[in-house]
């Protein structure tokens, strides 16, 4: 039983297209992908779908209007349509999430692979740096950096990347360490392949699945993180995103009874986050059969 499981895992890891279809067979993953597809369509087709522009001036509606036929999600303190804000805001929030995931995966992979492949001093140095960033509480770190850099979208992206790459680096490093000891790496080195070639042609493809699994989680935390930073006021509050919506909502919504203004962006963040968690849980299920319930 043990042998067949390991064989299956190795087969899955090296043929990740079939792994993806295995994952998709889980209902959880299907729900997850469904949600993501929904929001992606929303974001991409925003100009076509959205009833109004969230920056419309003059504002189309009366401030704090409750949800109704004209404004399905009500209006904010300026009278702007909240549904439009959600649609356009989604573009920004999801884009930030994806960009951060990309950058963090890039930096994290480079650091992790170098540390895991070259070991000894390079590993020590790189890992000390990673550990320091990892241990420090992320939000205070982000706040400090953002306070110096000034509030803007770029700051948010930069700061989120800084706090996200260590996790990727750690995971990539341990995977690299184990891959390095495998026979195929040795045989490549014996044949005389250069380090660069070994890393790019052999290790990276094998690392791809684990990087992807982690990137998925980074997107979630980045979206939530962006919302948190906006909420504190460190993002660009003139841009509409789910986070900035909550920033304004926290100031004005509660005492004006505009609960829909608070619920809508939060719900979107939760749904997107949930989607990614479902997918990552399904990925873990496929790769770790012991956790499966019969």
């Amino acid at each position, binding site marked *: 039983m043990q042998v067949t499981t390991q064989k299956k895992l190795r087969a899955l890891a090296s043929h990740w297209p079939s792994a993806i279809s295995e994952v998709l067979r889980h209902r959880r993953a299907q729900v997850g992908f469904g949600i993501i597809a929904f929001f992606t369509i929303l974001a991409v087709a925003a100009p076509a779908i959205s009833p109004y522009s969230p920056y419309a001036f003059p504002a189309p509606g009366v401030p704090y209007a409750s949800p109704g036929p004209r404004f399905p999600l009500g209006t904010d303190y300026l009278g702007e349509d909240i549904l439009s804000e959600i649609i356009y805001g989604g573009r920004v929030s999801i884009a930030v999430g994806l960009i951060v995931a990309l950058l963090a995966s890039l930096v994290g992979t480079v650091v992790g692979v170098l540390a895991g492949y070259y070991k000894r001093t390079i590993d020590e140095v790189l890992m000390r740096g990673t550990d320091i960033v990892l241990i420090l509480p992320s939000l205070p770190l982000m706040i400090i950096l953002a*306070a110096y850099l000034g509030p803007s979208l770029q700051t948010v992206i930069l700061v989120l990347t800084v706090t996200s790459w260590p996790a990727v680096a750690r995971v990539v490093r341990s995977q690299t360490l184990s891959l390095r000891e495998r026979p195929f790496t040795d045989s490549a080195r014996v044949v005389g392949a250069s380090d660069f070639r070994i890393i790019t042609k052999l290790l990276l493809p094998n690392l791809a699945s684990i990087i992807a699994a982690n990137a998925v989680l980074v997107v979630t935390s980045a979206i939530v993180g962006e919302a948190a930073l906006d909420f*504190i006021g460190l993002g660009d509050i003139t841009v509409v995103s789910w986070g900035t919506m909550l920033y304004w909502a926290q100031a004005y919504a509660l005492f004006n009874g505009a609960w829909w203004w608070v619920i809508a962006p939060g719900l979107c963040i939760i749904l997107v986050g949930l989607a990614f968690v479902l997918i990552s849980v399904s990925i873990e299920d496929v790769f770790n059969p012991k956790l499966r319930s019969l």
Partner: protein
Amino acid sequence: MAALRQRFGLDQPVWIQFTLYLANTLSWPPNFGVSYLFYPTPVFTAIMQYLPWTLFLVGVSTVITAIVGILLGVWSGSRPGSKFDTATMSISMLLWTMPFFWLGIILLWIFAITLHWFPVSGAASAGITASNPLDITDSGDILWHAFLPMMTLVIASYAGYSLIMRNTMVGELSQDYILMARAKGLRERTVLFGHAARNAMLPMITLIGLNLGYVVSGALLVEIVFSYPGVGYLTYRAVLAHDYPLLQGLFFILSLTVVAANYIADLFYAFLDPRIKY
């Protein structure tokens, strides 16, 4: 203007400023300079006034979160695949992705603003002179004010523990020594808690330590939502006022606290696991 610059030492070369700063930090009490916001109160004093409240908030909620997470994890882990397990896991995943501050806003809105069950802000009612959370005379009022923020923290973070505890339990329950415990005719409750959970809990302690940074971040946000006078709230005000000395001091103290807590968690782990020599 020039006088202000001189007062704050900002007219000296950068590297001198930095060295002086380090030297000051390493002395006791640490001298982080004077806060712009609370001028002329030194940064350190200001932080120390707010820190106890955050420690209170984070400390108590971590304990509650750990207990809830472990109990739920043990229960789900002992019956994987059951309705209880799937329901708990689904709810946990939902709550896990919920932003701390959003949950805070919702709870604040429902329980404080609408239902008036709990106060809207602060750590203690006006007129109460409790300067730190350990002041027993007003503990009722303090707990009343702390309840919603703590609940927010617990609900938003228990899922991380319960999910991992569940998975660890499933692993432990398939071990040989559990078969032995059952063969010995022990009650199922003893097998679960006295043996399986006891072994499964060890990695949890490391997890609690690792999560502390995350919980502190969450506490910061929760304090802002509830206007709870802890270091999070202080940070918020410092950001708004561009009070850089205060921010630096806060960051330093916070990081130090988290690192120290992690270290304590490591020691605790070594103490509990008889296989480790420390």
